């Protein structure tokens, strides 16, 4: 908001739809979430709302919702009640969506937003409720028709609604990123943004800085990446500032974001109370949720990212941003912890994981991409590099090889002849040879042209076929050059 009039403050709330990764749908026993399916392959009689069919709740979806609620310290409803939300749209087979309205399964909770510098901010979760997804309408497949695919119809969704506690586009994007990470951490969903497994709408209004009033909010639809969310909000703030600064008023409306132009445009005015004719679904009598069930779910919760993050800072003395990045994904955090314990070098472990390991996983789409190296392998590798048996570059090569094969670390080192040469005499001999061959450059070196050292080191490395320990090489060179200098000085005084 740097160029924008700093007298305005943005008030942002998010509504995030998370597709749950249960095997079957929310109310039918059809396979859920197979994106490679042919049209309507996974749409059974219940999903297509055939006459006479009835919904039966999938227990796993309810458990997922309670797990999320527990993670954000939300209140869990003691009765699970479903209501019908009515509207006509061709991809909504029943003419209503089974959702939760008066009693969301998760009530008010808190989400601790982390910043890379270790600061935190509490974002209130207003509620999270279960509902079924609609089918897909495809408008550009046939010229004058819309075609419908109901494979997605009935996929369980958890709709998470925040209070308007976010203040900047960056905060909103970070919230979505961390929520996304939590969803995957808890195993609730694939989180695949490209496939719509997490979909985000944002409500945004502006108010004068320091004022607690609420301005008129616009709803921005379908901001399905961290970047789109941030950019759309940024654009919207600028737009609203322009409107308000001109003394005009912001219209209450729903807007869509065009990632190509980077702008938002009005879709329709937002009605204050849309008539959905909610009423309790008579096909789904309320399900009581026993204290025992909630207690069981609580006791089966994994350690949460925020807890792990704090522990990493405390126990391993990691920098806040390292702890943050290591705890965005559970496998990463687990690899770090196990490796750090084995090699007893948390900082080196963090560097390797956030550097090389992360680089190796990049380019692959999904964040849940498997990590193809064990803590034992990584810790051995770090130890070898630390004790100088392995050069950093060879270490990187080795990691790649370990990633791609099932071979043992020592085995690879042996067959690839990767072990680093740390024999000081051998290195000293090579250094002497390089100095002799480049005698004319010594004065320059002595005159303080430090950059020339790199050239000398490179020469020694090439003599050693890349296996000499570079630190020992530099040391040997420096020692020899220093000796030369002393020798020369002595001569001058003669």
């Amino acid at each position, binding site marked *: 908001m740097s160029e924008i009039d700093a007298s305005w403050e943005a008030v942002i709330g998010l509504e995030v739809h998370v597709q749950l990764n*249960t*095997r*079957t749908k929310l109310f039918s*026993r*059809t*396979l859920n979430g197979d994106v490679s399916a*042919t*049209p*309507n*392959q996974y749409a*059974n*009689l219940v999903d*297509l709302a*055939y006459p006479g069919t009835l919904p*039966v*709740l*999938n*227990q*796993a*979806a*309810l458990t997922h919702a309670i797990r999320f609620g527990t993670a954000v310290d939300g209140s869990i409803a003691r009765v699970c009640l479903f209501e019908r939300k009515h509207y006509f*749209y*061709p991809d909504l087979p029943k003419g209503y969506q089974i959702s939760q309205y008066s009693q969301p399964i998760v009530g008010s909770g808190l989400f601790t937003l982390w910043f890379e510098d270790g600061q935190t901010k509490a974002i209130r979760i207003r509620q999270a409720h279960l509902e079924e997804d609609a089918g897909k*309408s*495809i*408008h550009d*497949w*046939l010229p*004058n*028709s*819309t*075609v*419908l*695919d*109901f494979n997605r119809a009935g996929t369980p969704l958890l709709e998470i609604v925040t209070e308007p506690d976010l203040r900047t586009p960056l905060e909103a994007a970070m919230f979505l990123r961390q929520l996304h990470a939590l969803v995957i951490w808890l195993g609730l969903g694939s989180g695949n943004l490209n496939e719509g497994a997490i979909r985000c709408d944002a409500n945004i209004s502006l108010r004068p800085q320091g004022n607690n009033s609420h301005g008129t909010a616009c709803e921005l639809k379908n901001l399905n990446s961290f970047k789109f969310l941030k950019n759309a909000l940024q654009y919207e703030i600028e737009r609203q500032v322009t409107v308000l600064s001109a003394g005009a008023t912001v219209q209450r409306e729903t807007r869509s974001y065009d990632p190509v132009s980077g702008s938002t445009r009005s*879709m*329709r005015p937002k009605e204050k109370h849309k008539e959905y004719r909610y009423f*309790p679904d*008579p096909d*789904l*009598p*309320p*399900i*009581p949720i026993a204290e025992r069930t909630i207690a069981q779910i609580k006791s089966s919760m994994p350690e949460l990212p925020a807890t792990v993050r704090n522990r990493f800072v405390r126990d391993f003395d990691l920098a806040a941003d390292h702890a943050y990045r290591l705890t965005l994904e559970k496998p990463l955090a687990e690899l770090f912890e196990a490796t750090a314990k084995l090699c007893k070098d948390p900082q080196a472990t963090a560097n390797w994981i956030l550097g090389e390991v992360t680089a190796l996983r990049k380019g692959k789409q999904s964040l849940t991409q498997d990590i193809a190296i064990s803590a034992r392998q990584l810790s051995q590798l770090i130890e070898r590099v630390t004790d100088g048996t392995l050069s950093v570059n060879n270490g990187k090569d080795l990691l790649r090889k370990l990633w791609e094969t099932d071979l043992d670390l020592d085995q690879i080192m042996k067959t690839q002849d990767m072990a680093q040469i740390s024999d000081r005499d051998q290195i000293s001999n090579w250094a002497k040879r390089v100095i002799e061959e480049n005698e004319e450059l010594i004065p320059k070196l002595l005159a303080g042209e430090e950059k020339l050292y790199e050239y000398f080191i490179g020469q020694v490395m090439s003599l050693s076929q890349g296996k000499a320990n570079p630190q020992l090489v530099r040391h040997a060179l420096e020692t020899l050059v220093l000796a030369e200098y002393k020798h020369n000085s002595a001569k001058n005084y003669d």
Partner: protein
Amino acid sequence: MSDAEKETICADLELILEYVDQIHTVPTDGIDPLVHPIDIGHLRTSDEPETSAHENLNQTESVKTAEGFYVVPKVIEP
């Protein structure tokens, strides 16, 4: 619906509303609405897929399909 049809139905509806409006005379403070006649609702199922052969569901002539999709007149996106 034709206008005549609408008129008859509206007249009927008015009669019906007049009849049912008597419920508003009954005091019901403190009474919980009864949504279901019986106190069950413990039923939920495990997350096991059902393996049933895919039925040929597009049986009637009036249902329009194309390559597995259901087809409707173009929906103009709002």
